[in-house]
């Protein structure tokens, strides 16, 4: 970690999708603040970076990261995972509340913020629990958690089964205009499942999580959003049917946003062939038609953000027969390379793709980030779009649970600056 720097980045292609900016220019950071973007800037004394041929863009914003502290030390630390984030060009990451203990007291929020601050690699934005212990029974102290630093309320991966409790949670959050971040999942329909209910799971004899487990709960929550007026963000939508519901809700003017994981945009149910536990993820990878629908959803903006659904796991978590292996992919380091891979495949236009990992997720989370604005602390990353690399060669996350570890992917992050501090620098 270096002190707040004076940086002059010259002749970069500056891509700021939130502002619609795409130009070759210089960018000057002084005392950590972005002071100017323009042609032929001069700043004696500033550290100069010749960035010809490189792209300069806002730091990435991750909407859905599972940090291993407190409680899951075998899977890494806040320091190891935020360092991995910095390597991936990520400057802001939203941390899910399903830690152990869960984020349902101010003390846990403080612990997470303090460790993140001490590590200094990225801005961690914790979500507070919607219900104590994520048990789905009572109201958590949402406003207290917000005052301690939470940016929203969430029940993590666990559904609130009792619809009356859920309605009251949303009413209470709406009282204080606190956004809720929900992962739609009907507990009964999803119970025991580990794969999409399609031809592959049928042939492999894997218990299924049907797509309707997601759409049914999404429909229920949307009705409650309409009734309570709460601002809601949906995590990790996985099916075309969910997308249609969301599209209608947005057309009706409901205050809703959503993200999808990069893995669901690139992989389908066939990825679990041969019982590949590295592709065991929740929600499961669905059919090819779902994947195509999700891509269209990102392209037209119905799905606002693309997340990495970062979940580092220890070695033993994946060394088990598929149904007994833990679900999750350590994804924060491959988020940008995989987004560039989608662009390379012409699945998404460049600016929309970059918007989906910068300004759009910041808007979903209600935080001021993901854009290059003068006068503010600089959060940005500098990437070489033409370099290609194999992620495992300099992998930093403590979890090596990624199906992308040995794939050659485009894009190399040369520098990351988070709130004025250089958090990653590489040749």
């Amino acid at each position, binding site marked *: 970690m270096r002190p707040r720097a004076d940086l002059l980045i010259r002749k970069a292609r500056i891509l700021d999708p939130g502002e619609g900016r795409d130009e070759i220019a210089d960018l000057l950071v002084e005392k950590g603040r972005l002071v100017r973007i323009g042609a032929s800037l001069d700043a004696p004394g500033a550290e100069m970076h010749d960035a010809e041929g490189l792209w300069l863009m806002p730091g990435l914003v991750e909407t859905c990261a599972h940090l291993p502290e407190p409680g899951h030390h075998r899977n890494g630390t806040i320091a190891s995972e935020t360092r991995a984030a910095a390597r991936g060009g990520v400057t802001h990451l939203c941390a899910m509340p399903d830690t152990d203990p869960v984020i349902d007291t101010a003390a846990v929020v403080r612990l997470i913020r303090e460790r993140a601050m001490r590590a200094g690699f990225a801005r961690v934005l914790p979500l507070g629990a919607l219900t104590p212990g994520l048990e789905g029974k009572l109201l958590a102290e949402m406003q207290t958690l917000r005052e301690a630093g939470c940016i929203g309320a969430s029940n993590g991966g666990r559904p609130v089964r009792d619809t009356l409790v859920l309605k009251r949670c949303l009413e209470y959050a709406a009282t204080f205009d606190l956004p809720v971040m929900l992962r739609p999942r009907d507990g009964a329909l999803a119970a025991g499942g580990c794969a999409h*209910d*399609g*031809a592959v*799971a*049928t*042939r*492999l*004899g*894997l*218990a*299924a999580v*049907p797509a309707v487990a997601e759409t049914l709960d999404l429909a229920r929550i949307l009705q409650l959003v309409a009734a309570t007026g709460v601002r809601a963000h949906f995590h990790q939508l996985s099916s075309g049917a969910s997308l249609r519901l969301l599209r209608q809700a947005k057309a009706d003017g409901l205050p809703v946003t959503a993200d999808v994981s990069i893995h669901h945009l690139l992989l389908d149910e066939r990825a679990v*062939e*041969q*019982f*590949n*536990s*590295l592709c065991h993820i929740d929600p499961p990878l669905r059919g090819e038609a779902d994947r195509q629908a999700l891509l269209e959803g990102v392209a037209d903006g119905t799905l606002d953000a693309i997340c990495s659904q970062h979940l580092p796991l220890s*070695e*033993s*978590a*994946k*060394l*088990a*027969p*598929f*149904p*007994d*292996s*833990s679900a999750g992919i350590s994804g924060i380091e491959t988020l940008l390379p995989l987004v560039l891979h989608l662009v390379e495949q012409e699945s998404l236009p460049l600016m929309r793709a970059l918007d989906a990992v910068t300004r759009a997720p910041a808007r979903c989370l209600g935080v001021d980030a993901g854009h290059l604005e003068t006068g503010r602390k600089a959060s940005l990353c500098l990437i070489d779009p033409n370099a290609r690399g*194999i992620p*495992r*060669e300099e*992998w930093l996350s*403590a*979890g*090596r*649970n990624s*199906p992308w*570890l*040995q*794939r*050659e992917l485009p894009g190399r992050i040369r520098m990351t600056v988070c709130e004025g501090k250089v958090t990653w620098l590489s040749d």
Partner: protein
Amino acid sequence: MRRSLPSRPDDGGGQAGAGHGLEKNGHNKGVHVSEPSADNLQLTGTGRLRNFLSIEGLPRSILEEILDTAASFVDVGDRSIKKVPLLRGKTLVNLFFEASTRTRNTFELAAKRLSADVLNIDITRSATSKGESLTDTLRNLEAMASDMFVVRHQDSGAPHYIARYATPEVAVINAGDGCHEHPTQAMLDMYTIRHYKGGFEGLRVAIIGDILHSRVARSQIHALNILGAKEVRVIGPRTLLPVDVEAMGVSVYTDLHQGLQDVDVAIALRLQRERMDSALLPSESEFFNLYGLTGERLRQARPDAIVMHPGPINRGVEIASDVADGPQSVILHQVTFGIAVRMAVMSMCMSGRETEESHAPQG
């Protein structure tokens, strides 16, 4: 292809592409599960059997070799000395994570008739945390210099996991994994069908009952399609039919009467009591009324149709007593053939591996 230490499964698999020269940090703690490569876990480089994990992925020639080899073993049981020395000096471990005395006994008998030493280990689901139980158990067993594991496990894919990551040096035979496959059962069923029908060309086969949870049905479907049966049908209520099962190459019937029309083979599956508890069926008696194999219904089938069942039978649930004991039933013969088929699979895996060792360059 070399598969090295089980503690570092990442080295196996022969990943294509760049990066190999850079992997110096093999001892890096986190290095683990690599992507399963497209290579066939079950066959050697020269196409011989080395593990028997699933019917899926095996060529017709291997299935026929199993049937032919089994035929040569059938009369071993009729001799006064019921042993052949093919596996003398080899150690076979019956590794049963799910209780099943019947299946285990047939494997034990098959191994002993091949002169192998047999160790039976029953490990019912223990209280240890996720994943550890299986991996740790296997590492302990490695020390016993076993040559072959016969594995039954409640999780689909467990034998694949063992063969790929845990003990690549040991031949693995799947004795039933979750709802995935039960390939030796399917092969003894194929043996039975070939014995009574002479072959598979032109045959219509119906599989009746709980397809959703049946590993036997999945293996049978693959085997029948590979061996060239004309049509494979599955018959059951929609709560017991898996999604997109048609993609496995079957026609789906929900009406037993229609589904049995002109079939040459009718296979009734065992119905587990738990299906009622999990609201998949209302009652055994309603199931029998709708899907039980009775003499009257069997008249829809061809007059020379045979009736099969993987056992143990629930009389009056999936099959009527008079059908199970009737002239068209070949259920008891299935058991006899089961030992010969298992002997065939064991001896083929072992000789496949021995040729592999003698041919493979080291390193």
